[in-house]
Structures are given as C-alpha cells and as structure tokens.
C-alpha cells in the first residue's frame, strides 16, 4: 500500500536526477520501495548491508549516475567508517533517506537504543540532517536534494513514526 507521500519522495528523487538507489528495507519504507520498483527512471539495487550499499553508491556516482541510499537509522551505526573514509573523504554527494525508528510512537524498545545515538553520531560526523516529523515537511526534500549535490556531502533525512503516521 503506497501513499501520496511515498510517490512524492520518488518524484523528487527523479526530478533531482537521482538515477541509482540502493536499499535495506524497513517497514516504514516499504511504500517508497514499492514505488521505486515501479519506477523505470531509477535503477534500484537492493544491498545486504548499508556500508556495501554506500560502496555501490560511490561507484554509481563515479560512473555518472547520482545515487541515494534508503535505510534505517540503525545503519548510521553500521556505516560510520564508510561515511568518513569514502563518502566524505572523496566528496561524494549522498542523500540518505532514513527511516528514523525509536522515536515517539515506536513499539520496539530496542529501536530506541539507536534512536538516542542517531543525531549524536551525525553531529559528530558533521553530516547535515533534517528531521521530518509531519508529512508537510516532505516539501523540503527537493531543496535538500539540491543542497546535497551542491555541497557534495552526505546528508540525512530522518523520517520518524509521526511523519509516516501523518502520511498514512
């Protein structure tokens, strides 16, 4: 079941010339991934782990396709080294669309354990991040994607349970 917000996210990616996306799924992202699979303009390659996915993204960027990665915030813990030594070191623009698990509305206690570290790690890495709490904030995505290409940095779009709930 996809929503207008899922479609808007993918439309903005296409409009910003994102042509390669790798994903590790999260149930909050299922709708976006479903839309992606029906989208011819974007080459969608599922990966097994998010650091592997960032390697694919770095390669796709150098091959001429703007990449993005879709993942859960737990992956911020997985990818610290890859973000620092590949994506940041080589100045690769990488918008990360992140399901922000563990915020208010979360049902799985363990998700809170990484939620409380997510912004701290992003701060430590000096990665710009944007916290979407309500579906109206999806209107900021187009500008964030342009900003990411301009500055050639990784950026994090954190979409929490309230965001997805308001979009349902």
């Amino acid at each position: 079941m996809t929503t207008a917000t899922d479609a808007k996210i993918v439309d903005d990616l296409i409009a910003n010339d994102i042509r390669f996306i790798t994903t590790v799924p999260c149930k909050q992202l299922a709708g976006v991934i479903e839309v992606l699979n029906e989208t011819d303009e974007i080459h969608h390659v599922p990966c097994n782990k998010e650091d592997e996915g960032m390697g694919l993204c770095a390669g796709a960027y150098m091959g001429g396709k703007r990449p993005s990665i879709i993942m859960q915030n737990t992956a911020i813990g997985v990818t610290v080294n890859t973000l620092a030594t590949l994506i940041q070191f080589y100045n690769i623009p990488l918008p990360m669309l992140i399901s922000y698990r563990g915020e208010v509305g979360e049902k799985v206690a363990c998700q809170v354990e990484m939620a409380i570290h997510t912004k701290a790690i992003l701060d430590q890495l000096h990665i710009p991040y944007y916290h979407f709490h309500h579906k109206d904030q999806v209107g900021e995505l187009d500008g964030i994607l342009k900003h990411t290409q301009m500055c050639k940095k990784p950026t994090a779009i954190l979409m929490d349970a309230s965001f997805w709930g308001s979009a349902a």
Partner: protein
Amino acid sequence: MIRHDILKELIPVISDHLVVCNIGLPSQELHMLDDQPSNFYMLGTMGLASSIGLGVAMAQKDKVIAIDGDGSVLTNLATLSTIANNPCGNFILLIIDNGSYGSTGDQATYAGMKTSLTAVAEACGCENVVECSAEDTVDTVKTALAGDEMTVIISKCQSGNVPVPVIEIDPVVIRQRFMDEIAKRPANQ
C-alpha cells in the same frame, strides 16, 4: 608469485581499462607500477572495492576490473550475492587470494584455511567463476576482457609484499580524474 608479481604482469592488460583497486598495498603497488587516471585507488574503507566496482559497472558501459583481496572480500562477503544477482557483462572481479591480510603483516585469513571463495561465489549464484594459479592470472583476465560475461576470478598466489610508497594524491583528485576518464570513454559516448 606474490601479488606484486601478478600486478606487474597484468599492467599491459589492464592499463587501458577502468580499475577499482583495493585499500592498502594493492592500491599502492598499482599506483607505483602504473599510475593512471583510469585507476581508482581506495585509501580507506576495507572491503568495498567489489561494491564500488560493481557500482561503476552498473552506471556506465565501459569494462571495469575490481581488484580485491581475500581478506577484503571476507569482510564484505555478501557482496558476492549482490554481484551474482545483478550481473553486469562489463564487470570483472579479480580476487587476489594470497590467504593473508597483506597490508597488516601477513596474518592468515580463513580463505587460506577451510574457506573457498570460489565455492562461496558459486554458492552465491555467480555463474562465471574461475579459480586460477598466479601464473595463469594474466591469461584468465585476458579471456574475461575478451568476453562479455561477468567474471569472478580467484587468483591463488603466495603471501608477501614489496616496499611501496604511500599514495599522496588527494582523494578528490583521484575521484575526479577517474570520473573525467569514464566520461570520455568511447563506450560512454
């Protein structure tokens, strides 16, 4: 033969091709032997040479050779399933398997013990997996380059290193000259 011997013999074969090279000594050796804009050197991030190489292969048309090591493939073992399920005819993964972590002092890897990366690649679904000796590596790479089928090559060689200087090129320069080279390749016009 050790990795450096293989790379030295490979230079005439791979010099004109896009190469993504593994972190540490492999990149430093390639840089010393034949620095080219068509080489992408990994300066960090152990394990991702095959992923970066596959990403390049998927995004454009020219042939891409990723030079990886057994230790690095072991740290990103799931890459072989991604490679198998997204076959690219322009992609060659050359795993130089010396059974050791060469850049850190030749500690043994499990690939030098019970684990066969050839069997792992096949089990992951890679359809064209070739295990060869160090001596046969150049011919095996030539055959792969002449074909249009994705190939995973596991080159079994001896452990050992030669003295090499570190790479002092800025990472952004390595990345940009590689991208410029890709953009002007005839296959991408």
